[in-house]
């Protein structure tokens, strides 16, 4: 809370005026803020023990009982400007602290950086500069855990180093947050490449830039990928691209293609069996946003289904847009490369980044083993808020 003009820690109410036409109070506060407070909103947010359960932090008043046209019977500024007291037509009394009112600025309210993150957009300059954290420190130190989670939210990618070269590491991190996001592949999963005994080794094909599980209506959010064993041989570099960076370029340079890529739903389908038979399907644009403006990229060529819900005359244009998308994501100025070493993890936002892998050789006598898992933003953000309060005393209103 910034100091007010009077040098006081908390702002105070100077004057409160009724406006029964607009059905709100206009309140002037000592920090030069003048706010409008609709009557119905004040009534809905009465903080007395009848209306608000302070133990559970839950509202007790019900919308079904409310009168949206309510007009207060009377009001007064009390305690030297520290609170506004309102008496309602049914004689119910409410009291509102000036500093609480000061924070409630409706569309002008301060942004909560956890619920409305600010994204740091990047390209090839991230090469060699990917934020790095120490595995043991994340497990033992809340401050490091907090910083790792914040970087995941704002930058979208982080390396976690010096983890044990064994399975179970992803689970440790997931439980440090809360729990895994489970999918049809289970809670954690492994990816192994191993030549058979008689072969001299083999080459595994590259993986084009993609997002994981686009055939989920709700694709997984944070991805953890832990390198337990890295193959001896050439190649095997992971590649990453920042979706926000791509969006920026497409919007600026190819607005028509961007319109198609963000407007036409593409079907993704995956039918097979893992622990049980499944048939997943989702239908959303390649560049998608939720109602909160969060980016959800959804791209994986191998499982793009033939369905295209668009006029047939526009189909060829759509393919041109998809090709253009491919060209843009592979521009050198957008690509970040990193070859995981044993004991190293890459953690990233699977809805924002596209990731891929160059082809690699597995020489005889060696093998490659990765373990991975997912965590939801709901749990990551919740853990971040709890830590913010614990470490920095930053409470939500």
């Amino acid at each position: 809370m910034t100091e007010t003009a009077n040098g006081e820690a908390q702002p105070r109410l100077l004057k409160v005026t009724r406006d029964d036409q607009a059905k709100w109070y206009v309140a002037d506060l000592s920090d030069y803020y003048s706010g409008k407070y609709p009557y119905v909103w004040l009534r809905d947010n009465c903080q007395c023990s009848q209306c608000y359960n302070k133990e559970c932090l839950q509202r007790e008043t019900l919308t079904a009982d409310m009168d949206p046209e309510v007009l207060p019977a009377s009001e007064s500024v009390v305690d030297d400007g520290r609170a506004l007291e309102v008496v309602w037509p049914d004689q119910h009394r409410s009291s509102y602290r000036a500093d609480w009112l000061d924070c409630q600025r409706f569309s002008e309210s301060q942004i909560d950086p956890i619920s409305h993150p600010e994204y740091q957009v990047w390209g090839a300059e991230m090469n060699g500069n990917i934020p790095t954290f120490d595995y043991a420190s994340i497990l033992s130190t809340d401050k490091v855990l907090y910083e790792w989670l914040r970087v995941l939210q704002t930058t979208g990618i982080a390396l976690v180093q010096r983890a044990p070269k064994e399975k179970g590491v992803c689970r440790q991190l997931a439980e440090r947050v809360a729990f895994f996001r489970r999918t049809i592949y289970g809670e954690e999963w492994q990816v192994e490449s191993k030549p058979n005994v008689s072969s001299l080794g083999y080459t595994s094909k590259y993986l084009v830039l993609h997002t994981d599980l686009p055939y989920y209506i709700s694709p997984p959010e944070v991805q953890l990928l832990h390198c337990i064993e890295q193959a001896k041989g050439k190649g095997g570099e992971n590649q990453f691209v920042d979706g926000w960076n791509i969006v920026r370029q497409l919007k600026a340079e190819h607005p028509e293609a961007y319109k198609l890529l963000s407007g036409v739903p593409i079907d993704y389908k995956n039918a097979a069996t893992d622990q049980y038979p499944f048939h997943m399907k989702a239908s959303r644009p390649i560049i998608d946003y939720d109602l909160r403006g969060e980016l959800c990229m959804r791209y994986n060529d191998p499982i793009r289904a033939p369905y295209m819900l668009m006029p047939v005359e526009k189909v060829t244009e759509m393919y041109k847009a998809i090709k253009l998308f491919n060209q843009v994501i592979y521009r050198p100025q957008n690509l970040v490369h990193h070859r995981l070493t044993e004991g190293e993890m890459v953690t990233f936002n699977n809805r924002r980044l596209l990731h891929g892998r160059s082809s690699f050789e597995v020489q005889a006598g060696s093998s490659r083993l990765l373990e991975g898992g997912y965590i939801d933003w709901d749990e990551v953000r919740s853990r971040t808020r709890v830590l913010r309060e614990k470490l920095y005393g930053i409470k939500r209103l």
Partner: protein
Amino acid sequence: MTGRLVGIHLARFASSSPRIGGLFRGVSTAGSNSIFSKQLKSSPSEVPSSRYMNLPLISLTKSYSSAQTTNAVFAPPSSLGVQTEGASKGHCDAVSDVRLDDGGKQLIMSWEGGQSQTFPYVWLRDNCRCSKCFHPVALARLTMAHDLDVDVTVASADKSPEGDDVIIHWDDGHESQFPSDWLAAYRFVDSQRDQILNPKYKLWGADIDLQSFEFGELLEDDRALHDWLAELVIRGIAVVKNTPSEVGQLHRLGGRVAFLRSCNYGPTFQVKSKVDPSNAAYTSGPLALHTDLAYYIRQPGIQMLHCIEQAECTGGENLFSDGFKVALDLKEVDPEAFRLLTTVQFEFFDVGTDHYGKFHQYSRHPTIELDELKEIASITISDHSRDPMLRVPPDQVQPVYRALSKYCKMLVEPQNLLKYKMEKGDITTFNNRRALHGRSAFQVTKASGRHLEGSYLEWDEVNSRLRVLAAELQSK
């Protein structure tokens, strides 16, 4: 860029397999055996053992023997329900004509029944199903968009003698073959709606004929399981009866779908109270109609509430209302209120400590969420967890409260409010993004206990199970 694939990932662990786009999961080869050097023949049960000889095949056989059929490559868009409604498989008329339109870079097909459809060349080439272009086991595209020539041209195209296939010769020498009934299902903007992603909902009120299912049957009988899940999609509410009276039954039922969805309260949560009217007249106030976990960005899709023990009491009915139906009613009587509720986002929060430690969940949602087709996708109402924060200009505040108040009052009107008193052994199951639920006040008449266990499922897994069951039941 397009090196021949010589080796792919091996999955050897029963609990998991490579999840990279679902490509080549559980499928491996090694050495110089390329899976693309051989054309795959019909029976899929041959596939694993003949190809991937050198590697442990346990999971492989289990993975691919049942799910794959020769038609899997050309599996039509799935329908809801075992009976094929309408032309989900495309009609079976023979192809009468195949014409090239090089100017428009498209193929024009006509069927004997009079139907005709244009297919852009690039779409046909992108969706070629030969084994070089489409992996017949992983059922995944092998042709990558960034290699695709968007100006590819057809040299010639013919229908097969019986008119059930179309054979295309491309100008680069490639050849594609498509069953005509498969093509008939792809009509672009005129395609049939996906009945699972975009269902035709059956709206309901207080007079609903509430469907019930037997717990024991759901565990054993795939048909019953299918019908229960279809009911959840179409109506969004159903009761499961005669469930054993102990915790853990939701895990069993959830396991028939896939798995339970966890939240900050754990994989399941308990609502337990011992009530005794002798101390004072024990009354519990009503629980207003709401949706669960409004404070999650990713709100749970389906809720299940298992009544393990029901108190001896008067009142205490569970209350339900069809949020979709009432929202459409609101749109009729007050379009401005409806508009406000679809645009203004309320914020929700929950703070505490439970199964996974301390938590602080926070989210925001409009009361009525519309999808890209402007249809109602989701309802969120939660007086308890609604935050004071309202990020709108102050002159919008009172109008949005008026709108919310109107909607809430309509939800509890007698013709909309379904009352169902749960019995011991009941599990109420409902679409948590559509059906509002609550409970009327109750007064205990005898010292007794009340115990409910609750949990959630997600639509992704429910939809998937429904598609698999529909296909399996249809093939029987």
